[in-house]
């Protein structure tokens, strides 16, 4: 039955991906929710929230706000919270509640910009897609907002999209792993300025398929090349070691991390390795045997005949019928911080 899940839990939603992409980027992020959605982000999807430097608020939407469409009140709330200053942007992120009543978040963002004088933009997440879609929208919106008309000459920087916990395999710290020389992260403080001076960048890297839209936008305007890549990390090394003498392996994670793991496994094994994902994927980076999942049946079919599945432990119940051994490769989008 379409949309019915018996074994698999809901993944981190699009608004979590959007908040995560912007959380540490130096702005103020406002999730336009009643409070429950922000609880998901804070409690399960964004480990940096605990003690981190990001500023992330709930709009605390209430029933009467939805009935009367009190967008002016929302603008006032945001302006009051932004008053202490120090934010390089204000981002409004959508949720099911504002989506179903058809709030024009883009218009609200323009009103916020007018009221506060701070660059503001909206990410029209709905809570109905997974984190990768929200991350993609947020990175593209941030990029669109700050890209200049013209660019300065290249100075050899590398720009990275997607260095967020939701894209990480296991306990990987993507910022530490990617910090090499002149690297700038579009998910960290200073992102707005970095994008304003995009001409300083020689190449771009996105750590998951979500970053491709923003990268393509930059490439189309400024010709800066990009690639999707994930580093050979400690978490992937551990997972690769679990491959042993397995002959047919299924890896389930976000595509960039899973592809790197496949490459690592193939260094020492002749196993037939497929990469599957419920999240956004780049067809050009997929191999013929790689499945894309939208439901539990497809997942079970893909695992059938495998002797090893490398995936988050929360896939365990959905994979039980396959009889395959499960090697853990935690993913916050499934299990939060439970297994990292």
């Amino acid at each position, binding site marked *: 039955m379409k949309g019915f899940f018996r074994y698999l839990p809901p993944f981190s939603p699009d608004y979590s991906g959007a908040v995560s992409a912007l959380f540490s980027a130096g702005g103020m992020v406002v999730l336009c929710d009643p409070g429950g959605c922000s*609880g998901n982000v*804070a409690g399960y999807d964004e480990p940096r929230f605990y003690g981190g430097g990001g500023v992330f608020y709930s709009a605390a939407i209430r029933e009467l706000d939805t009935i009367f469409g009190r967008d002016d009140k929302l603008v006032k709330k945001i302006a009051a*919270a932004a008053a202490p200053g120090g934010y390089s942007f204000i981002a409004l992120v959508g949720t099911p509640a504002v989506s*179903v009543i058809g709030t024009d978040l883009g218009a609200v963002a323009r009103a916020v910009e007018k009221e506060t004088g701070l660059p503001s933009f909206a990410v029209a997440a709905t809570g109905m897609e997974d984190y990768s879609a929200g991350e993609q929208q947020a990175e593209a919106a941030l990029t669109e907002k700050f890209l200049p008309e013209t660019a300065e000459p290249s100075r050899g920087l590398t720009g990275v999209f997607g260095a967020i916990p939701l894209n990480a395999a296991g306990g990987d710290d993507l910022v530490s792993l990617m910090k090499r020389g002149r690297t700038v992260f579009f998910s960290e403080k200073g992102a707005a300025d970095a994008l304003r001076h995009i001409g300083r960048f020689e190449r771009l890297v996105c750590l998951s398929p979500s970053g491709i839209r923003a990268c393509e936008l930059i490439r189309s305007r400024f010709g800066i090349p990009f690639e999707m890549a994930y580093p050979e990390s400690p978490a992937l090394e551990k997972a690769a070691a679990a491959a042993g003498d397995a002959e047919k392996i299924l890896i389930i994670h976000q595509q960039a991390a899973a592809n790197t793991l496949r490459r690592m496994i193939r260094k020492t094994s002749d196993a037939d390795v497929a990469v599957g994902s419920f999240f956004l994927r780049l067809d050009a980076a997929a191999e013929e045997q790689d499945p894309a999942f939208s439901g539990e049946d497809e997942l079970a079919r893909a695992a059938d005949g495998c002797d090893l599945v490398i995936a988050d432990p929360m896939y365990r119940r959905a994979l039980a019928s396959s009889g395959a051994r499960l090697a853990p490769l935690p993913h916050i989008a499934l*299990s939060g911080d439970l297994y990292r």
Partner: protein
Amino acid sequence: MTEPRFVTVSELADKPQGGGSRPLLGGCRLHYNGPGSTGFGVKRTAMLLPESAMLMVSPMGCGRSGSVVAEKFGFADRMFYLNLDDRSVASGAYLERIPEAVKTIAGLGTFKAVLICMTCIDALTGTDLEGIGRSAARAAGIRVATTFMDPIVRDGRFGPMVQVRQAIAGCFEGGEPQPGAVNVLGTFAPVPAQSELAQVLRGAGIDSVRTAAGCRTFGELEQMGRSRCNLVIHHQAAACGEDLEKRLGMPFIRLLTAFGPEQIAADYARLGAFLGAQLRTDRYAESARRALERFSADFSGKRIAVGEAVCGSPFDIAAALVSAGIRVPFVFRDMVLPSDGAAIRRLRALAPDTPVYSGVDPGTFTASRSLPQADMALGLDAGYFLKNAVSVAWPFEETHFGFDALVSLLALLRRGFEAPETHRAQMRGSYLTV
């Protein structure tokens, strides 16, 4: 902003409360839902319904929290999800799939009931949840309960936590009344036979103290409808008491968990009158008096901030602590409840200048370093902001009532002083995983 905004207890006591809850600092502001804002959520509460499954009919995001909690607390096999997408929301097609989903769950043969939970989406589009429940029950041949998890109404009288409790109480079945049994509504845990409340009631001829959490089978839960009466010990369960009075004719009494010895004694007196029995509570009162004395002797002068992530009124807890010689540098309360009124007045009499902050106000977050310092912070919300204080998490899984509530509170605080745990470690032991 350099100082977080606050209202003193004295100022708060002077404000008219009206019939409902009211925001401490006015409603027009964003919320900072900090990592310590913990509590028993809708999904964990729903799991109190024995031998049941829960079907979340919602966008992916709304089912998310339940999934991690379910994995952590071992009820993942009772959770089912019907995820909505844009198109099905626009067409309403998902509504037709609900009976089929319930039928699939019923077909597993494991469950006696299915609790359908819908969210803000359906609350806003005016879905006839009860009608859907009826048609699902007809199609699947299984008992179906329904509830909304719609935080857009969380500040109202029928917030999500009230509604899920109503859904559970809605499964009680009437019948021949059993005079030796009473229900306690508003707990997340059974009332143990050796507890103070159970023993006090036993002295009044009541040998069965029932709670939803204490029911092992759905049949036992249905039997709760035959108990003599309902004791409502949490404000979120008051609506259940009213529902059951109306539907099954069960009388109820509101006895919200209190922490001041005089208030507790007064509550027992009211309970005795309600039951028509003389309740013997002297030895418990004496035990609490001694515990309070010992605590006061050992910790008088210490500073304990009282957060909102507790079970009971933080004002009531603060008043009890102040009367024991403890200094309470501040209290957190964002929505002031009608049931806080008496405790606010008691605290005003003892410490009128106590500042009350909203733990979710953006100013509290941005200027948290300016909060008054404390030796201990009770409640993980306060503990998150007070980095130098011992953090003490509220044990939501336990039920305490009467003098035992006070004794248990003091023991909890004593353990905190004697064997402190980090806030982060307690967060991991709590409902949130990050």
